[in-house]
Structure formats: structure tokens, C-alpha cells
């Protein structure tokens, strides 16, 4: 029983991080109908930014409240900028081209980032994983029995942050002027442009929000698993993408549900079945969901206009 509870907590903790990354995929897909393969790698860059900031702050300052806020701000801001640059120079010129072109570009950026960061030339960090500093002193938030079940402060914290961000995002999309513009662009960006909506700006801002979210998620991830490596983006990104597709890509609550589902399923497969089959299970679920419900659990397949 205690074990089950612990698995549940682990799974939720993993799921919330997937969810935050998945939200970025879903948002970008919503406005551009583009699978931003580079999303996970943007996240990785954000984590390295946070890592560098933490170092610059030094051992003492990085643990203060202000220090943590600063680390998050730098990483999220830096990533928003990176997202903006990628959108501006790599995706925008391709907006009217076939969708495949943008997809290939996204894959190219993903490669350039994840492998570029493995170089040890100049400021690039090199391939070896590094320990992420404990910017949040881990303390036990809840202990049941003789440490049978342990819940840590950062687990609660990341859950709260994740939920907060999701609610915020939902509010942004459905209750604000900007959200309305986003939805209009998502529906048909050409028509939206004709209606006087600044399409370029809406898409750019969406990208920036998505990238900033990714950086935040990445930092929570790094705090959780205490290490940073250039390939982390590929792994987490892929899983988050799977989660977004399972939930129905383009659908905000769907992404969250898909991510939590994936986190829990992975946890339980490892905990109770064969841990060696975990990655196969994730993709197996993906394929199954796509076959049964091609639009994902919540998404709808838009009938192609003929």
C-alpha cells in the first residue's frame, strides 16, 4: 500500500513536468499546426541558462528566495528570447511553405541544439552530465510511517507551479483579448490577418510563452532529477510530445491529462511490470491511441476541407 502510494507520487511528479513541456508543444501546434520538434531542446538550453545563473550567483545566493526567482527569470526570459529568434528566423519564412518544410526545420534545430551543446568548444558545456545545484533545499514535506512514503517540498512545489501555469494558460487562451487573437490565428491565420489581428506578433508571443514554460519545466525537472545533460531535451521532449499527442495535440487540458497519464503508466510499468519495457510502452500507448482515436483522447480530427 505504501509502495503504491509512493509510486503514485512519483508518477504524478514525473507527469507534471511532462505536462508543462507538453503545454508548449500543444500551444505551438495550436497556432502554427507545427510540431515543434526543437521544443525539448529549447528546454535543455533553458536549464543550462539556469545552471549558469546559479553558478554566477554562488553557493549562498542561489538558495535564497530571490536567487531562485532570479534563476527562473533568467532561464525563462532567455528561453523566450531563444524561442522568439527561432520563430523569427527559422519558422516565419516558411509559414506559407508546405508543412513538411517547417517540420524538417524543427528537426534540424533540435539536432543543432542537442548536439551543439555536446561540444566542448567555447561556452558550450560538453557531453557529460552535470549535477544541478540544489537551489531549493530539499526538505520532507510529508512522511508516512518509517519513511515508507516520502513527499518532498519540491514535489509539492512543482505540482503547484504546474497547476498554476495550466490554469493561467487556460485563462490566457479563453479569457483575454490575446487569447482570442490566438484562437483566431489558430483557426485560420490568413483570415485572422485580414481581420486586423497582428498574426506575426501573436505567433511570436505564443512561441515565447511556450519556450518560457519549457524553461520553467526544465528547471523543475533539473531540481527533481538533480542533473543536466545536453540530451535531456530529446528524452523529455519526446515523452512530452507523446503526452501531448495522447491528449490530443492543440488541446490544453488534454496535454495535461495525457502527461499525467503517461507519467503514471511509466511509473507503474517500471514498478510492477518489467522496467526494461518502459520506453516501448510509452510509444505503444501512443500508437494505440492514434489508431483508436486518431485525434488523441480529447482532440478532434478536423475534416480536411475539400
Amino acid at each position, binding site marked *: 500500500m505504501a509502495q503504491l502510494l509512493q509510486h503514485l507520487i512519483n508518477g504524478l511528479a514525473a507527469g507534471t513536468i511532462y505536462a508543462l513541456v507538453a503545454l508548449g508543444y500543444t500551444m505551438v501546434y495550436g497556432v502554427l499546426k507545427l*510540431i515543434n520538434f526543437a521544443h525539448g531542446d529549447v528546454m535543455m538550453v533553458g536549464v543550462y541558462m539556469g545552471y549558469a545563473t546559479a553558478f554566477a550567483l554562488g553557493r549562498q545566493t542561489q538558495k535564497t528566495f530571490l536567487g531562485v526567482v532570479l534563476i527562473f527569470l533568467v532561464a525563462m526570459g532567455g528561453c523566450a528570447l531563444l524561442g522568439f529568434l527561432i520563430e523569427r528566423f527559422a519558422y516565419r519564412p516558411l509559414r506559407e511553405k508546405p508543412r513538411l518544410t517547417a517540420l*524538417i526545420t524543427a528537426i534540424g534545430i533540435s539536432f543543432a541544439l542537442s548536439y551543439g551543446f555536446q561540444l566542448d568548444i567555447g561556452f558550450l558545456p560538453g557531453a557529460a552530465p552535470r549535477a544541478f545545484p540544489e537551489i531549493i533545499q530539499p526538505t520532507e514535506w510529508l512522511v508516512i510511517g518509517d519513511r515508507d512514503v516520502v513527499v518532498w517540498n519540491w514535489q509539492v512545489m512543482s505540482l503547484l507551479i504546474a497547476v498554476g501555469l495550466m490554469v493561467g494558460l487556460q485563462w490566457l487562451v479563453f479569457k483575454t483579448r490575446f487569447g482570442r487573437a490566438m484562437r483566431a490565428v489558430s483557426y485560420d491565420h490568413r483570415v485572422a490577418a485580414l481581420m486586423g489581428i497582428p498574426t506575426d506578433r501573436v505567433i511570436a508571443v505564443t512561441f515565447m510563452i511556450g519556450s518560457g514554460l519549457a524553461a520553467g519545466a526544465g528547471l523543475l525537472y533539473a531540481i527533481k532529477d538533480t542533473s543536466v545533460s545536453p540530451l535531456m531535451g530529446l528524452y523529455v521532449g*519526446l515523452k512530452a*510530445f507523446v503526452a501531448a499527442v495522447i491528449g490530443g495535440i492543440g488541446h490544453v487540458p488534454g496535454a495535461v491529462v495525457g502527461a499525467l497519464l503517461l507519467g503514471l503508466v511509466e511509473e507503474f510499468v517500471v514498478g510492477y511490470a518489467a522496467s*526494461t519495457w518502459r520506453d*516501448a510502452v510509452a510509444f505503444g500507448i501512443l500508437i494505440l491511441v492514434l489508431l483508436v482515436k486518431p485525434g488523441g483522447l480529447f482532440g478532434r480530427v478536423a475534416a480536411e476541407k475539400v
Partner: protein
Amino acid sequence: METSSVPTPSPGGLPPALRGILPVLIAVPVLLLFDRLLASAPFATYLLSIMGVNVILAVSLNIVNGMTGQFSIGHAGFMAVGAYVAGVLSLSFKETALSFLPVAASDQVFLVVALLAGGAAAALCGFLVGLPSLRLRGDYLAIVTLGFGEIIRVVVQNTDAFGRALGLSGIPQTSSLAMVGFWVFLVVLVARRIAYSSHGRSLWAIREDEVAAEAMGVDTTGYKVRAFVVSAFFAGIAGGLFAHFVPIINPGSFTFVKSMEIVVMVVLGGLGSTTGAIVAAVFLTLLPEALRSAFTVMGAEGSLAQKVDQIRMPVYGLLLVALMLLRPQGLFGMKEIWEVLPRWLPRRRKGLA
């Protein structure tokens, strides 16, 4: 590749039954001669073999990604299936030979059988992946093929018969340059003949407009599945060849990164252009080698030459981005080299004048 320039249109005045296989009849002795000439240069042989395998992979992927306009990024998965099936077969028949043939010839027979088995297994996987998932649209298909590649890796890693993480080693090194060349030649021939047949036109039609193709009576799902099967078959063959000259295979050789390398080749060459895929595969295989040699000759021992390997993958990424921005149709677009070159040459001459 040395075989690529053999054009498909066959000369007239031949017995029609012979015409279909004439290029093969010409190619085989040429390849054998080539093989003999390079017998004393193992490195050239190895490099050309790797190049040949890459050409087979690129040309076969081009059938799906280029001609049919689908986007598969799990080609290394099919390659792995072929490599493992052929490898396991060869390992278990290592001690066996055909009584009525000299040993060398019998080895070649076994190699071909193993390759065909690997190809068939890969084709079956292509069918299984293709059948359900081709109903999905482009980007979803991409992710399913990617997932397929990952599942293959997990399966191999958990199967003792496939050597798990260590992989298979001690596979007989029976592959030769002639054998690789022959398959390169075959895949090019098949790709060209498909492209110029009514089947190829149906594939092009699907690439151009799936809805319209369907409305014009093209069984789009069927054609897509068949394109996948043919493509996977040759990827399996490439894997089998790979297994027989490296001659060790392990899951690390067939990752997502390998799939992406093949995609880069196809995109660089031009989606839909067989010769483009060949040129790009040759170029990208030789480029690191050439740079390395250049650095070594220049005396930058070690450091710079190693940087070549380091920066290869990020450069591939940037290359893809730059290509999509500047020349999204790739080197040759949908055209073949002989359709494109004449148009380039006069322009350059004009530019010089």
C-alpha cells in the same frame, strides 16, 4: 556510386524478355571487376561499402519520403530488423556450406539468402507499420515511425537471441564490394522503374494531392503501404549488408540519429530525386572522411581531425535548417541529375561571359 550512372531506358532491338534484366547483366561483371581491382585496399572497400549502404538507405527512403510525400523518420528501425535477421541467420549457418559449390560461392549464396530474409522481415515490418499508421496525416506518421524505431530498439535490447545490448558479433564477413554494389544498383533500378511507371505516377499523385488522387481512383492507402514495403525491404537489405562487413551490430547503430542522417541525405538531395539521394549520400559519407584526411595532411594531428566528428551532427542540423530556408526543394528538387545539370551549365557559362 559507380553504378548510378547506368540509365534505365534500355536500347531497342533487343528481345523484350531480355530487356528487363539487361542492366543487371551489364552491371554484374562490371562490379566484379571493380571488386577485384580494390581487393588490396581494404579501407577503400570498407568506405565504399558504408557509402553503398548509405546510398541504398537514402534511395529507399526516398521512395516513401520523396516520391510518396510521406514523412518517415524511423528508417533505421527497418535497417535494424534486416541487420538482425540476416545476422542471426548467418551466425546460425556459419558452419554450413553447399556441397555442390565451392565454399566461396556457397557463402555468397548464404549471404544472399540471409539478405533476402532480412529484407523480407523488414518489409513485413514496413507492412505492419504502414498498414494502420498510413491513415494518419504527415506529422503523426512521422512520430509513429519514430516510435516504431524505438520499439525495435527496446525489443532487441530485451531479446537474448539478438545479443541484447552487446549485439551480435562474429557475423561472417562475407559481404563484398560487388555484393553491396549489386544491391545499390538494384535499388536504383527499382526506384527509377517505379518512378517512371504508372505506379510511380500514382505515388507522385499522392505526394501532390492525396484527396485528388483518391478521387481519381488511386487507392492511396494501398499505394502508401506498398511504397513502405518496398522501402523497408531495401532498408532491411542495407542492414543485412551492413551486418556482414562491419561485422558487429548492436542497438547503438540503429538509433534515431541514424534515421535522421538518412533523412538529411534525402532532403539534401531533393525529396523525390533518386540521383539527388545518391549524390547526397555519397557526399555526406565522404565529407567527414575528406575533412579528416585534409586536417591530417595539414598536420593538425588529433585535435582538429577529431573536431570533425564532433561537429558533424550539429552541422547536419544547421544544414537542414539552412536548406529549408534557402533551397527547400533540395539539390535537385524532384528532378534527376541529367534533367537539372544541362539547365545549370549554360547559366553558369552565361554568368562567366
